[in-house]
Every structure is written in C-alpha cells, then in structure tokens.
C-alpha cells in the first residue's frame, strides 16, 4: 500500500482531519461528529462484534452477487460477441438495465424475492455490476488481436489451445479492469440495497444510524466502507493488475 498512497497524501489527510476537527468543534456532534467521537463509535461497534458481523454479511452478499455478475457478464459478452443477432437484441436491453434507477430495482426485487433478507441486496448488486462487467469484457473482445489467432492457425494450433493460450490471456487486462470498476459498483450498491431493503449488513446499520441520527456511528461505518474499498482498490486489485500488466503495455 505504501507504494501507491504516497507521502504527500498523508499531509493532505492531516489537513483534512484538521479541517474536520475544526468544523466539528463548532457544530453539534449530531451534525458533524468530531474525529474523537467517530473513533469512539468505531471502537464501540468493533468491540460489540456488530462490525465484524455486519461486515461479513455485506461481504458475503457482495461476493456472491459480484461473482455471479462476473460469470454471467463474461458469458453474455462472449455470446453477444460471437452472435451478432444476439448483440442487436440484447445490447439495448443492457443499456435499459443500466438506465433503471436502483430505487426501481429495489421495489421490483420486493415483488420477485419477497422477504428473503439476502436476495434483494444480492439482486441489486448483481444487476448493477452485470452491465459494467459486460461492457468492459465486450470491449476487450472487440479490441482483441485477431492476428495472433491467425498466426496460431497458420501453425495448426488446435482450437482448445487457441482458446486457452490466446483468448484467455488477451482478455485478462480487460477482465481485471472490469473487476476493478465493477467492484466499486458492487460494494456501493450492496450498501445502498441494505440501506433500503434489508435488516442486516453494513447498509442496514448505516440506515439505523441515519434514522436515529447517530451521526458518529454513520461516520464510523463510512470509515469502514472507505477503508475496505481502499484496501481492495489499492492493494488487492493493484496486485492483480501488476500481475497482469507484465505484458499489458504491448
């Protein structure tokens, strides 16, 4: 992490904290809690175990939905790339899906999934991440170097080797970038879905804190969300990217 977030940022962070502390001093903690109060709230939720519990719930939902979206997004992209007819049929549908506000998805999800606590967030994360994955993979396919495939054919390479040794590695960079962009979506929409339509998870805790104006807790949860996102973006995905970009520049 140190290589990515570098010193000057810490200085900026310090100033942000300073401004935060200053503004909070003049304001009621319900409106803007101080750093100390937020930290206190964070400690509280951490010690009570609710942090870990909610985090695991949200993470589980995100991973399930995100995993599904990744698999289906890749399959859809492959199918639509291969069959132009499907493309003309489903491409606009994907835009429609993207254009539909999350609020509407949530109210539809109620009809489809009823009371099941997990299904609505999972559905929302899925439906929000799917187009992102799809669009990126599809772009990757369109940008793919068909010359390499021809080269392989000129040397009588069997079909399965072409798939494994050319298609797959060609798509890896697009895949990683899709994974990265979609994760930000998935994580944020899981919070949103839980905020509106669930009774567990970080989003639900946020909504509880919000409705009772426990602003310090709201901040505590937000810090958890941001830290995890930074961890994924600047650590996990950065690692993956480095692994892939070995030959990406070419």
């Amino acid at each position, binding site marked *: 992490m140190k290589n990515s977030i570098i010193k000057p940022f810490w200085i900026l962070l310090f100033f942000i904290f300073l401004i935060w502390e200053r503004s909070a001093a003049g304001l009621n903690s319900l409106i803007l809690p101080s750093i100390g109060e937020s930290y206190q709230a964070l400690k509280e939720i951490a010690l009570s175990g609710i942090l870990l519990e909610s985090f695991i719930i949200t993470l589980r939902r995100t991973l399930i939905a995100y995993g599904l979206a990744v698999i289906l997004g890749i399959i859809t992209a492959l199918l639509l790339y291969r069959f132009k007819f499907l493309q003309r049929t489903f491409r606009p549908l994907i835009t429609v899906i993207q254009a539909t506000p999350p609020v509407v998805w949530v109210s539809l999800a109620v009809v489809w999934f009823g009371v099941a606590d997990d299904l609505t967030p999972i559905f929302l994360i899925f439906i929000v991440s799917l187009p992102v994955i799809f669009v990126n993979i599809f772009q990757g396919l369109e940008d793919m170097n068909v*010359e*390499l495939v*021809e*080269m*392989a*054919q*000129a*040397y*009588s*390479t*069997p079909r399965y*080797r072409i798939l494994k*040794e*050319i298609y797959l*590695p060609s798509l*890896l960079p697009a895949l990683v970038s899709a994974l990265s962009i979609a994760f930000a979506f998935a994580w944020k929409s899981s919070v949103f879905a839980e905020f509106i339509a669930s009774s567990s998870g970080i989003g639900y805790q946020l909504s509880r804190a919000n409705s009772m104006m426990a602003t310090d807790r709201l901040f505590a949860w937000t810090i958890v969300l941001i830290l995890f996102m930074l961890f994924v973006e600047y650590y996990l995905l950065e690692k993956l990217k480095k692994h892939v970009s*070995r*030959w990406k*520049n*070419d």
Partner: protein
Amino acid sequence: MTKEQIMLKLKNINKSFQDLTVLKNLDLEINQGEICCLLGPSGSGKTTLFRIAAGLEKADSGEITKNSDPRFAYVFQSPRLLPWKNAEENLIFVQKNYGLESEKSLRDLLFRLAKLENFKTAYPDELSGGMQQRLELIRAFAVKPDLVFLDEPFKSLDMKTRMNLRKLITVIQAETGITLFLITHDPEEALLLADRIYIMAAEKQGIIKEIKIEKAREKRKISDPELYQHLENIMDIFSDLVSDLEDAGDEIKRLF
C-alpha cells in the same frame, strides 16, 4: 528429394476484394528445396498470394496442389508474437503443435544463430523491433518445416542485421533443403538469394515476369554481368513511373 520435385503449385488463381481484383488467373510453382522470391511494389498482391498459398485465405477460384502433406511455417509481415510468453515460450508454443517441444537444442541453436541467446527469457515488449523480427523468423524454423513463407522478413532492418539474417536463412536452407518462399522489396536481395523470382504488378493483377537463376548462390555478386543485367531489367520495370518529375523543375524553382 530431387530438386525438380514440385512442392507447391497454384493454378488459375483468382481473388478479389469487393470491387478490387488483386489476382487474376495466376499460375505459379515452387520446387522442393528452392528459394523462390516474390518481388513487386506495394499493393501488388504479394501478401494476398502468400495467404492463399498458405491456406490462410480462400481464393475465389483456382487450384492448389501440394506435394503430399508438407508442413508450412509462416513469417508474418509484422511480427505476431504472443506478448504474454517470453521468447523461448513463443517458440515452444508452436513446437507443441508438432510434438517438438522437447527439442531444446534446436531452439538454442536458433537463438544463437539469430544472436538472441541472451534474450530467451525476455518478453516481446522487452525486445527491439529488429529483435522481434528475428524471433518471428526463427520461430518458423523451430517447427522443422518443409516450406516457409517469409513475408518481408528483413524489412526496415539495418544493413548489418539484414546481411546476417540473409546468411542465416541461406545456411539453414543449404543444410536442410527446406523450401523457402520469400517476399522482398529489394531486387538485389532477390537476385542474391533466389533460384526463381516472380515479379508482380498491381496493374496486371498477377505475375508479370519469372526469372530463373542457375548460378550457385555462394558465388553470386551483384556486379556479375548476368545478375546485373537482371537488375537493370527489374529496375526498368519499376522505373516506368519515375520519369514525369523532370518537367516539374521550373515550377519547383518558381514556387520555392
């Protein structure tokens, strides 16, 4: 392998792209163990002819006859290397298709001949353009082919590298009898290397001239009267269009 056995024979080949007729009733043959050069200006259909002969593209009509089932290898006009595999893995990738992946000593020899022995583990994007071209070239020989298609393998290389690589393929050819089918822009190169030269022109949609050279390759020099005569003839064919610049002299003087 008698020299006169035919390796590849194209008969009456036609090929158009939409409105553009590139090849029309084209005939061509290459004997086993020959070096055959294709010479012609840009756009005259050299690559198209190659692709059809190698089976990468379908002709609109015509007949292709091969000697039994020869193993082809193809050196592309611009290198087509797998960027996620290092130099040696790129060779192994094609060798595997013929069960040759264990022939490490052959790979080592090729790397040595192409002066790439220190770059076996380098990835294509770590190689200079010239190095990539050399890798593209030796990959073809790594599969022990019967016939190699070489589409301008020495293009935009410096004179030194060019001479090295010319030497390299002639040495390999001399020792193994592999048939080489080579595209070049350089008439001298063709004259120094080829047993047979086909000259193409876009205007004629095919081959306009065939030159056979009997003289032993090692003994050729461009100043040799026979070769020099061929060179002058080829230059004449190509210089058809150069003439009309002379009369622009006055205008140039006036406008500058």
